[in-house]
């Protein structure tokens, strides 16, 4: 028996973009495959080994009864479970159904909604099983994924920041788009990890990495409004890729 550690990649309700990030590591993929055996990865391989697995990467949110069952099974089979991406960590954009009538959503999209078997909610993996680590983002950042896998191979904990995007903007040397140009930006309340991508492209952060730890959202709201966002604009920008995150969810925003 080989002692090479094993990796499994699982898909729940999602666009595949986060697991695709692993295949986007063109320079590292083959080297990585020499260090860690990819034992289960349906998108990339027809071969699948049975568990247990040393590390499981889980992409996507839980939206069906079948997924409820499967996540428990995967947890039992995995020594370390890493939830990857906004769907797995916050329910994804499909969690907008949590604030709407899912039955109405279904009949808006499908002529025969009775064929649809779906839960009324889209929930993160950690709502159902203990999760060891979470990589944020819609999609996750490739460098962060590699660092997490390398940390595992080196026997250390991954270095996942819990500061805001602002800190990355400063380190990158990007001029603050809000201060200099009045562009509304969620950087002050959004978790770092993307490398402050959007401001570098002259765009305000739209929060795809979800809320940082203890974000001061109420301090940001008047600044967003001064910079031209209506109450509805503010509601919408928080209700996007991490809509179900409690810190971003609507009731909290309207409190004084």
């Amino acid at each position, binding site marked *: 028996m080989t002692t090479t550690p094993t990796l499994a990649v699982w*898909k*729940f*309700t999602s*666009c*595949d*973009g*986060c*697991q*695709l*990030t692993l*295949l*986007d590591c*063109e*320079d590292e*993929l*083959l080297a990585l*495959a020499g260090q860690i055996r*990819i034992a289960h*990865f*349906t*998108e*990339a*391989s*027809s*071969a*699948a080994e049975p568990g247990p697995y040393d590390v499981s990467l889980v992409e996507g949110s839980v*939206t*069906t009864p*079948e*997924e409820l069952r499967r996540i428990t099974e995967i947890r039992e089979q995995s020594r370390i479970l890493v939830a990857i991406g906004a769907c797995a960590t916050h329910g*994804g*954009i*499909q969690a*907008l*159904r949590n604030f*709407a009538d*899912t039955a*109405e*959503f*279904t009949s*808006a*999209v*499908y*002529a025969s909604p009775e*064929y*649809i*078997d*779906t839960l009324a909610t889209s929930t993160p993996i950690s709502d159902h099983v203990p999760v060891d680590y979470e990589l944020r983002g*819609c*999609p996750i950042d490739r460098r962060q994924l590699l660092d997490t896998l390398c940390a595992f191979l080196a026997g250390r904990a991954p270095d996942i920041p819990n500061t805001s995007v602002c800190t990355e903007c400063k380190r990158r040397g990007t001029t603050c788009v809000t201060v200099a140009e009045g562009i509304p930006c969620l950087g002050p309340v959004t978790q770092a990890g993307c490398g402050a*991508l*959007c401001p570098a*492209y*002259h*765009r305000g952060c*739209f929060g*795809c990495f979800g809320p940082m730890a203890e974000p001061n959202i109420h301090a940001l709201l008047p600044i967003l409004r001064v910079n031209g966002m209506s109450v509805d*604009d503010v509601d*919408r920008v928080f209700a*996007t890729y991490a809509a179900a995150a409690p810190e971003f969810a609507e009731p909290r925003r309207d409190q004084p």
Partner: protein
Amino acid sequence: MTSRSRYLKVESLARVEGEGALRIVVDRGVVEAAELHIYEPPRFFEALLRGRAYTEPPDITSRICGICPVAYQVSACNALEQACGVELDPPLIDLRRLLYCGEWIASHCLHMFLLHIPDFLGYPDAVALARAEPGLVEQGLSMKKAGNTLLEVLGGRAIHPVNVKLGGFYSVPDPRDLAPVAERLRAGLDAAVRTARQIARFDFPDAELDCELLAADHPERYPIETGEIHTSSGMRFPAAEFTRHVVERQGRHSTALYATLDGRRYATGPLARYTLNFPQLSATARQVANEIGLGSACRNPFRSILVRLVEVVYAMEEALTLIAGYRRPLRPAVPVRSRARTGHGVSEAPRGLLYHRYDIGVDGLVSAAEIIPPTSQNQAAMEEDLRRVVAANLDLSDATLTALCERTIRNHDPCISCSAHFLTLDMVGR
């Protein structure tokens, strides 16, 4: 062997994007059922787009697919810009096409080298293949990286780029930023031409799509980022008339909506694009196509890998031409003000034509959205292809036939997570 009843089932289709399964029933030599089941859970994009600002669909719909987010961004922009009566400045049109070239290169190379080639060489995946043929896989990964680098420089990141905006871009690159990209593309172009000869030696089973073909049509260019629509039977219509001809229906046995073209089965994707637009390929792409024996039309889905390779050659060359002619535009985007109108837009996703429609209200919010992804358009053609392949290969063992069925579906590179339109389905045993 052909006289008994057979039931073949693939519970989870590997090396495709998203979750699908196959069900084949053969009774006394007759193919009774050949079904592609898509059990991807629905995400209700068309429902959750209602009430969003008219500026939002490009970012939101890109989340439908991790492999072709640019296709969603561009089809959405085309539809919304049409509704708002806005035309892009010519340099911005070129820049949008350049970004899309990056996606074609990255997506086609992903499909060819990581998902499809293992089928031809008998490996379960590219990692196993790389142990036997490291050169081929490394070459493929470097070609893919050329596409991803282009997406990253122009779009910020390869998956769900952040720089696409209604009317253009949030920021436009300095020509110097594109120089290293051009270097990678030049190396990629050489690698693509070299790889073509290698891939052309693969064994391609016989098969033929006998349905109508549908692709975008542009008077001056091979269709990528926009166009009207034309078909192999000579139909021609603008995006605004798309749903007059293409109608989707929901079937109980299937997980996806089936689209038909005036009631007929049809296919979109690389074979359709290539067969309908061959004269518009570059001289180099046409030369490579001739060298590998493709001719000016191709209807064999197993040879779609060769067509993708020719399209990669084209996209790399086209990207190099666009970079060579690039001057920083005077403004990164044309201002787009909302109008209470309906807009229609199409573009050629790597796996086929992608249609979007939006109704914008007086409040600047989207009141209705409709998205018809390539996989739903191809669903009927894929199943017919599956049926023919099974009927022609009944003498194969169950295991070999099942593997051939899986290959048959992978030939089409279905993007199953385009689940805006897909339903769940319980597998019915028999």
